[in-house]
């Protein structure tokens, strides 16, 4: 299909481009920017005037619920939500049921995603069998069947020997390892940040050391093994500092932060609202500001959604007894835009952290509007106001603390390989 996107402000950090121009699409790829190619007849002209045209976003962490927990979400429902959020590629962790430690599960996820046709889904394979932290998962085979990287998610690898061998093996095949760093013994039965709000509410706290200790251990083993490593969803100032030092040392490490961690702090838990029950927990104002700074200085190079859809009943209980997570694919953009609104980033810098940078972390050809690349495009109105109420969300998970707020910025159209997969 031949498409023309007319009159939008096209921002493509990969080409250092930020100007009002037109884009021409043919056969699922970008044919030209600016002047109309000779003989081009658009079957549809998309009027993007007053809107931003950006590379489709790349989300480094989104749970989909399938296979295994389809009451939370299905690949079809959650990729449709991704499309509504302008996300054209997403990475999904191996914590499905069964976990992604066989090629069959990796292939099933990708097949279902392809059948649904809303977004490209890149599974992470398990680093150890069953995420049990004991034996290596068949990483090479999993990589061959499409796993983009390997992670033990938040399941502990207690033995440092096993962890080192897993990293050595991944390094052998030049595979990316993704850490969601957490020391299980320090998390214990904690459910929020260990600070004065936890003290007042009598909720069990999770100290920042639960993250920093594991980040340190992993960094030391990255140095030892030379594996390419990415740290997902940092939550505290200490982690930012450790990653910054490691990068200065020249270690091959990157990091991301979820959009909601950039905005909220532990004080929000006051009132026991289970919508704020997340892991890693919302931490102090100083931690949040360190995350913002890290995002500005480039220690943290990407923003992810950390999407975790939950069914209604999962959040209906006393705080600690509720399931964790926020349904956040569709709020990734408006929440991230607050970083621009509050003066932390310029709009092109934000788009870079949602598209070009995560593509670089994954080592994939995406996140750009260069001629010849796949036409994965997000068009959004940065001024459009809306609230992520249950009827507005395409995700099966309606669990968001932001539903009562008026957010600014909404995707109006998403193209995946030149095909519209979402229209507002």
């Amino acid at each position, binding site marked *: 299909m031949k498409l023309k996107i007319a009159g939008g402000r096209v921002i493509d950090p990969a080409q250092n481009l930020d100007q009002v121009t037109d884009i021409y699409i043919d056969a699922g790829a970008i044919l030209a920017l600016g002047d109309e190619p000779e003989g081009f007849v658009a079957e549809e002209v998309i009027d993007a005037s007053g809107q931003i045209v950006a590379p489709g976003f790349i989300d480094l962490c989104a749970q989909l619920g399938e296979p295994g927990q389809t009451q939370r979400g299905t690949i079809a429902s959650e990729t449709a939500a991704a499309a509504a959020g302008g996300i054209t590629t997403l990475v999904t962790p191996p914590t499905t049921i069964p976990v992604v430690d066989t090629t069959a599960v990796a292939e099933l996820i990708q097949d279902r995603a392809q059948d649904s046709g809303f977004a490209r889904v890149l599974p992470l394979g398990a680093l150890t069998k069953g995420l049990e932290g004991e034996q290596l998962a068949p990483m090479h085979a999993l990589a061959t069947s499409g796993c983009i990287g390997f992670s033990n998610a938040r399941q502990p690898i207690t033995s440092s020997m096993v962890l080192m061998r897993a990293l050595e093996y991944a390094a052998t095949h030049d595979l990316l390892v993704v850490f969601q760093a957490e020391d299980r013994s320090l998390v214990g039965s904690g459910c929020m940040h260990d600070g004065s709000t936890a*003290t007042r509410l009598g909720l*069990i706290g999770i100290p920042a050391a639960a993250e920093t200790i594991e980040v340190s251990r992993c960094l030391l083993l990255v140095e030892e093994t030379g594996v390419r490593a990415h740290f997902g969803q940092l939550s505290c100032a200490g982690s930012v500092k450790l990653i910054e030092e490691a990068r200065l040392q020249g270690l091959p490490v990157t990091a991301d932060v979820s959009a909601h961690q950039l905005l909220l702090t532990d004080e929000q838990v006051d009132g*026991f609202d289970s919508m704020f029950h997340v892991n890693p927990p919302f931490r102090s104002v100083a931690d949040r500001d360190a995350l913002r700074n890290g995002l500005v200085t480039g220690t943290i190079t990407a923003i992810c959604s950390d999407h975790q859809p939950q069914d209604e009943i999962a959040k209906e*209980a*006393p705080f*600690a*007894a509720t399931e964790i997570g926020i349904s956040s694919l569709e709020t990734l953009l408006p929440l991230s835009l607050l970083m621009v609104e509050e003066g932390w980033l310029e709009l092109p810098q934000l788009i870079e952290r949602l598209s070009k940078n995560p593509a670089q972390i994954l080592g994939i050809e995406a996140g750009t509007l260069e001629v010849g690349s796949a036409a994965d495009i997000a068009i959004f109105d940065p001024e459009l106001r809306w609230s992520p109420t249950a009827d507005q969300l395409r995700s099966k998970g309606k669990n968001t603390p932001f539903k009562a707020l008026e957010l600014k910025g909404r995707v109006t159209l998403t193209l995946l390989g030149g095909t519209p997969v979402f229209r507002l």
Partner: protein
Amino acid sequence: MFETKHPYRVQLTESGQLKHFITTEGLPRELLTEILDTADSFVDMGAQQVKKVPLLRGRTVANLFFENSTRTLSTFELAAKRLSADVLNLNIATSSTKKGETLKDTLMTLAAMQSDMFVVRHSDSGAAHFIASEVTPGVAIINAGDGRHAHPTQAMLDMLTIRRHKGDFTQLRIAVVGDVLHSRVARSQLHALRTLGVAEVRVIAPRTLLPRDVENFGVKVYQDLTEGLRDVDVVMTLRLQRERMTSALLPSESEYFKLYGITDDRLAYAHPEAIVMHPGPINRGVEISSAVADGKRSVILDQVTNGIAVRMAVMSMAMSGQQAERQARADAEAAAAAEQGAEQGAANEA
């Protein structure tokens, strides 16, 4: 980006009357004083031969204990009966929730049996708040202990005991000794003591038994018992659970007793007329020596007596708060109906 929350507001009616009793946090001094005054009158009544008043006649109070506790359950039962309520005791720790029924389902079922009040004890912090705000707001919820969060009736019976022995709160120096970290009693006490204007509140414990930023309660922290007890008027000891030894918080009961146990020798540093309190059940020779527990400074049995009076007070107050709110709602509906009727009448005339 979110409005400031005042979670304790859920327990008050619009006009500031108590309609649930979930935490002592954030309640105005006048309300705490009203609870104490009301309780005072019930203490005297308890000493009479006929101990019943008809304040809750025809009402159903359900005691929902998701955690076992014979003592607290008995005092709540007695308090409800002295108010002439019908009482239903449910030991849920061993029944429906084990069958996979959610807390919400259990509560909805009981509400459908037309209970007027739930007295709830639960191991999760925030359980009473959850029930009052999201499950059955029209049923008065009395928190009989939720996780580590709050045990407001225990705190108020302690306040009553202090007031009956010491009078004016604003002249007092009070020390809370022991496992603050795990204690819902301590949290409720600290809020109440601060609100009632106690001159100086101290907390004495080893660091493993103190929650982070405990100073934010407006208390002075002491690690040394002798220093912390110096010149205090009231010593409030906390219970120490056995499992603190196995979870690497303390090396042994004997070491704890040596460093933090209340003995006559230690009490010599306190004010000569200092009283000693304990929420019970006591671990003699761990938190407190037998000589102190049974001695003349101990007011532990007064606490138990006052507990019934305080529970009667908050039960009757919360019930009238609920009733006032229902009445206000009914009035508003009637007014709206009348207005609509008037409009209709005007339309018909036209």
